[in-house]
């Protein structure tokens, strides 16, 4: 097994608010190997975007980052802003959600590449820059004839390809893609996913793919981490997690997803919790159909179940569950008034 490109341990990101700290990411651990794509999936407000930004040190003021992001023997959490700044671009890349607003409308595509490459690789000649730019655009399916066009001359899907090309022209070993296809149509989305699939084969780039769409995870990712209320509640190989989900939240989320095979409607009652005062114990327990008496009392430990890691008392460890802890949890019914 190859060494990890990125190794995240017990990462926490808290935002200060008037009501107290929002625990957007609260103790998250995962590893990414070279060329691997990890899908980070969850509903809005679960902390997935914050986690993606936190790993790259791109958090707004007022956010507190704690824990460990191991990259090439360094901990990016304790590194100086200048050190992380130097890594961003050539080592750590980011692909944004909205390609429409991330390109400078006054600059030609060629000038975007010139700016990026001059900043990070100052020795390059103009011809070398053009060559690098055209080559990476070609890999994204953009013809060389369009190299000197302006962003407005491209469609949304083409602009997203340009964004990906701009992130990859520096050949980073780790890229965060934050909902890169959410604003796009289904055909364009499928085109971009297949391009991203080619990339991991050809560039050996490790990708953290943030999305709310389980179908895309199944399509584009090797492993998946399911986030709920700031925690990764289950992670493992995509095929295993989707075929045999071990955490009730993963299971319910999969059942709620409307796909072409859907014949009946299903949903999770209630709403994701307020992260200023999250529920005690397991954060999913108020909505969990399998909740037990131990669930609100103690925080679940990560348990290895087959190829997956799960945070759920259903999987033990038995030694930590009190005598009557496995009895079903008695609680009030959830009404629409509490729904999301």
């Amino acid at each position: 097994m190859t060494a990890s490109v990125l190794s995240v341990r017990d990462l926490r990101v808290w935002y200060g608010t008037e009501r107290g700290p929002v625990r957007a990411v609260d103790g998250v651990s995962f590893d990414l190997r070279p060329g691997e794509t990890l899908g980070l999936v969850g509903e809005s407000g679960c902390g997935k975007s914050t986690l993606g930004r936190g790993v790259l040190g791109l958090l707004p003021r007022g956010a507190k980052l704690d824990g460990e992001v191991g990259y090439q023997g360094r901990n990016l959490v304790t590194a100086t802003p200048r050190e992380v700044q130097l890594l961003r671009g050539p080592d750590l890349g980011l692909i944004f959600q909205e390609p429409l607003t991330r390109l400078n409308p006054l600059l030609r595509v060629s000038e975007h590449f010139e700016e990026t490459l001059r900043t990070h690789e100052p020795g390059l000649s103009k011809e070398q820059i053009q060559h690098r730019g055209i080559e990476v655009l070609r890999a994204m399916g953009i013809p060389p004839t369009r190299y000197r066009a302006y962003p407005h001359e491209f469609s949304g899907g083409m602009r997203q390809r340009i964004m990906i090309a701009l992130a990859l022209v520096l050949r980073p070993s780790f890229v965060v893609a934050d909902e890169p296809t959410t604003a796009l149509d289904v055909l364009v989305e499928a085109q971009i996913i297949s391009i991203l699939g080619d990339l991991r084969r050809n560039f050996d780039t490790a990708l953290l793919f943030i999305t709310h769409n389980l179908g895309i995870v199944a399509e584009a990712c090797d492993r998946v981490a399911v986030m709920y209320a700031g925690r990764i509640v289950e992670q493992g190989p995509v095929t295993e997690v989707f075929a045999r989900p071990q955490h009730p939240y993963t299971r319910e989320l999969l059942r709620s997803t409307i796909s072409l095979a859907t014949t009946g409607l299903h949903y999770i009652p209630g709403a994701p919790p307020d992260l200023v005062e999250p529920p005690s114990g397991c954060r999913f327990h108020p909505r969990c159909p399998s909740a037990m008496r131990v669930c609100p009392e103690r925080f679940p430990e990560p348990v290895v179940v087959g190829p997956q890691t799960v945070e759920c008392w259903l999987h033990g460890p038995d030694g930590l569950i009190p005598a009557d802890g496995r009895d079903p949890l008695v609680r009030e019914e959830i009404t629409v008034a509490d729904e999301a």
Partner: protein
Amino acid sequence: MPTKPEPSTAVESDARPTLMDIRDLRVHYELRGSALARLLGGGGATVKAVDGVNLALRRGEVLGLVGESGSGKTTLGRALLGLVPATAGHITYGGQDLAELNQRQLRPMRRRLQMVFQDPHAALNPSMDISTAVAHPLRIHGLVGSRAEGRARAAEAIERVGLVPAEQFLDKLPVELSGGQKQRAVIARAIICGPELLVADEPISMLDMSVRAKILELMLELRADLDLTYVYITHDLATAKFFCDRVAIMYMGRIVEIGPTDEIFADPKHPYTQALLRAVPDPDPERQVPRDLPRGEIADAAAPPHGCSFHPRCPYAFEPCGWEARDLRAMFERRWTELGEEVWERESALVGELDEIEGYQEQVRLKVGDRAPELVSLLDEARAHDPDEPLWRGVESIDSDDGTVTVRFRAGVDPALGPAGNIDVACHLHNPELRPK
């Protein structure tokens, strides 16, 4: 767990009375050209957002309008309610032609024709509490005498959409509600006047996965209880499959395929529908299939492709699909993308600027002087390199004469909707007179 309502058979649904009849509906937008072009009286292009749609909406059905952004599905949905003026055509509803009415005459009709918007966060006035917002249509239409009566009716509607107890919600501001609750309030506002037809424009696309099913379920309940007819506008084929009795697939302002949902999803006829279905990501890893996706993206609406709008992307396009000069440019761009910078630099010097090729031109004349034989052999080589490229089926001749190379294309035919079983499809592949033998 609610399951999908029994699909009505074609015979039954045909027997349903028509609620609204749409004939040759067109909604065109004039684009302003440059100031100079306007002075000279020319310039502005026309975007044909809806371009000749025929549709009979049956009472009690859920009709899906499915398409990508720019397909005209939202414009069509709005035109049905008179929210955008029709450029031409007829919308017959209740013995009147909505396309002929002015805004004043339309207003009373809107009691019966309502809309649910995509973004519940934007569809509610942030400074208006829920009871006022939900009762607002009653006030506008003068259906209530007093504020108290409006509030009581609002409470009724709010409970009807599942926000129970209503007292808990009546005085709240939109910001205090979650996305799903807001969408329920928007639906309450839409049903409070007792409509017959609801046009729901992507009503669940802004909501989280775990909430979407709840809103769809509510809409199904309301349809049964209030005898509603829905036009469901979406880009999401999975919810359309579950929710709709019939679907109309739209591409560049036209319906390219329409028919019973089950049949279209089981056996799509149009290459575009086939491509859309293949592109839907499926969460079941066992069901992953290799994809061959159509190339490119939806074309510029101000200059739609000649003939069939989908032909530049269609893998099955053949002679009559509407080949034109722009397709040759696209072929060179794909070739250079594939073969790289050197080939591009070499060949583009020979081919010259292709940028002027705009609009429909049935032939391309390339003035290359004494390099004409070189260009002809380049075209031959390009054809030999990718003989399956549909473009070559549309090229009638390549002639070289006096330093000019002329590429002529076969005449294109506009595809019209025609029957293929229970489905109507606009594709030459299903036209017995045109399809390849």
